[in-house]
């Protein structure tokens, strides 16, 4: 029975990953903003086979609350084997260009807040000498593009932080997984026109489940994004500036 803490548990992707673990009888501590939806998601996981589900309404923008959230999760579950950090905020890029507060909000939610939460979790995992912290970043963090460089910056900075942490914690047997999804059809992208590059949330969620079990370091999902990003990263800056990507 896996003991799983999910931060941002109402994300469409996180719910799918949790469903895969629920089918295996996992125990959950779910934290997200909306208490009513948490009750629905909790009942869903229970009915699908979760051995226990505890929920907590929490806003991860409030850094001061992180220590308490982690303490509660650890107490409820009796230790945390897997922490999945899924919350994120996709701001409108053009709005960000005029609005520092919005830019800061994106960096705060996607980067600062996640760093704070991960730092609260780290000693716990180190003491356990095992377990996995899985964090959802984005392919947008692999290279700055005019279309979404604020969001990209927050996810890219996060990936760098996790990369260093991964190497450090590998000595304690703790796994750090950075998930880099491409476009996924979820509420986050509800207003975006869909094209064939969009994946569905269930397949992305289940890929994360498999990657956690396989103790992967980095997951591009769907897998073809690894190659797309490889090519994009190879483009010399002089040329990249001129491309409308």
């Amino acid at each position, binding site marked *: 029975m896996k003991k799983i803490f999910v931060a941002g548990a109402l994300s*469409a992707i996180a719910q799918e990953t949790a469903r895969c673990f629920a089918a295996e009888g996992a125990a959950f501590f779910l934290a997200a903003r909306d208490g009513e939806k948490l009750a*629905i*998601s909790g*009942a*869903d996981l229970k*009915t699908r086979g979760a051995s226990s589900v505890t929920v907590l309404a929490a806003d991860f923008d409030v850094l001061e609350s992180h220590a308490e959230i982690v303490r509660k999760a650890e107490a409820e579950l009796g230790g945390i084997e897997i922490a999945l950090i899924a919350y994120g905020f996709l701001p409108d890029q053009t709005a960000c260009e005029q609005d520092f507060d919005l830019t800061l909000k994106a960096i705060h939610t996607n980067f600062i807040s996640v760093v704070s939460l991960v730092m609260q979790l780290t000693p716990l995992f180190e003491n356990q000498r095992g377990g996995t912290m899985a964090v959802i970043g984005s392919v947008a963090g692999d290279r700055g593009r005019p279309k979404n460089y604020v969001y990209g910056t927050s996810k890219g900075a996060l990936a760098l932080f996790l990369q260093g942490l991964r190497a450090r914690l590998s000595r304690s047997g703790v796994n750090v997984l950075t998930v880099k999804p491409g476009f996924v059809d979820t*509420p986050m992208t509800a207003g975006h026109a*869909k094209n064939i590059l969009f994946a569905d*949330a269930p397949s992305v969620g289940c890929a994360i489940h498999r990657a956690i079990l396989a103790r992967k370091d980095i997951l591009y999902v769907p897998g073809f994004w690894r190659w797309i990003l490889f090519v994009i990263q190879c483009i010399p800056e002089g040329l990249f500036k001129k491309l409308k990507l």
Partner: protein
Amino acid sequence: MKRYESWGRFPRAAHSVFALNWHSQEIDFPRFTNKVLAFGLGRSYGDVCLNDGGTLLDTEGLRHLIAFDPAEGIVDCEAGITLAELLEIFLPKGWFAPVLPGTRHVTVGGAIANDIHGKNHHRAGTFGCHVLGFELLRSTGERLFCSPDQNAELFRATIGGLGLTGLILWVRLRLKAVSGPWMQVEHLPFSSLKEFFEFSRDSDSRYEYTVAWVDCVSGGGKAGRGVFIRGNHAAGKQAQGEWKSKPAFLRIPADAPGFLINRCSVRLLNEIYYQLQSAKRGPFTMPYGPFFFPLDSVEDWNRLYGKAGFLQYQVVLPEDGSARLKEFFEKISNSGLGSFLAVLKHFGPKRSPGLMSFPKAGVTLALDFPIRGRKVFDLLNALDEIAAAAGGSVYPGKDARMSPGHFRKFFPQWQEFTKYFDPAFSSDFKKRMLL
């Protein structure tokens, strides 16, 4: 990327899409300036799932399970969950879907709105017979729990209600206890319709699932030949091996050229299928997947019919009208438009609570026709005439072409049905039927 089209891909329609994710979600109906319609997985062949120029409320994200009573096998689930997923979750616990169509990829909401039937209709009736209740969201914002005791008229009007009475948010469904995932199956080749009726009469009381495939392209001595398939859930854990459903082994990635499905290829396929199926008679044991959903092994097989799409025609003739089945076969065979895989089955007398439910006691015939010009529309119109004269009817959930006049003959209760419409909802079927 999800395609918002019907399974027959005729007619075409353009929509705005609004995705739903929670049954608790508030929907601000006045914000939609045009009409709305719930959309599950678009496995309806015709236009009941289309709403050209309007908005589709995509229910695929409504997949939360709410509760399960393991003693009674009663599940409360959101309306967008598929029968495939319910089987995956509950079959290991010994529970099965009460009624299954020929594909696992349908939502519970869609199954109710078309009041679908399966190979066990002669025993179990329609899907609606196993629905204990559901919550219906009306565009006024009201959430109504509908059951045989509460809001009973809306309960009846929504089962088989083609999505026109509002949005089903979640459903209370009675599952069926089974001993396991294996089926005990027999194939009985027959050479005439008369023999089909004999097999049916003989089998329906002893076999939970019966269906026949018939050849309606070959003329002469081969006319009316087919294979009668009957099965039961295999008792106990007798079979070993892999039964979990695998993903489709083949996917049709793009439209096939329109000429692929033609008179010769269809004849050839019928011949091959007949020889293959009649060669393995059984009884043999097989996993439930390929027994119920043989077509699911090829994903997007509807693209084989090409850009123009295809029509599916399903008719039911009451017991005393079944003699007229022969006329259908003659007309189809003479037209040269026949299709691969015509399906024949006996419907039982069990009544659905649904006001507009299609099945009734008698015999049902279902077949596909590629769309190539007017000829097929004329043929199907002529078949509608026969059906109307025989007191039969045609399945709205698979229809894209019947006339409003025929629809009203087939469903004389249509006027009562319109009383329960939600004014904010519409579909291409509704518009076509001038409702």
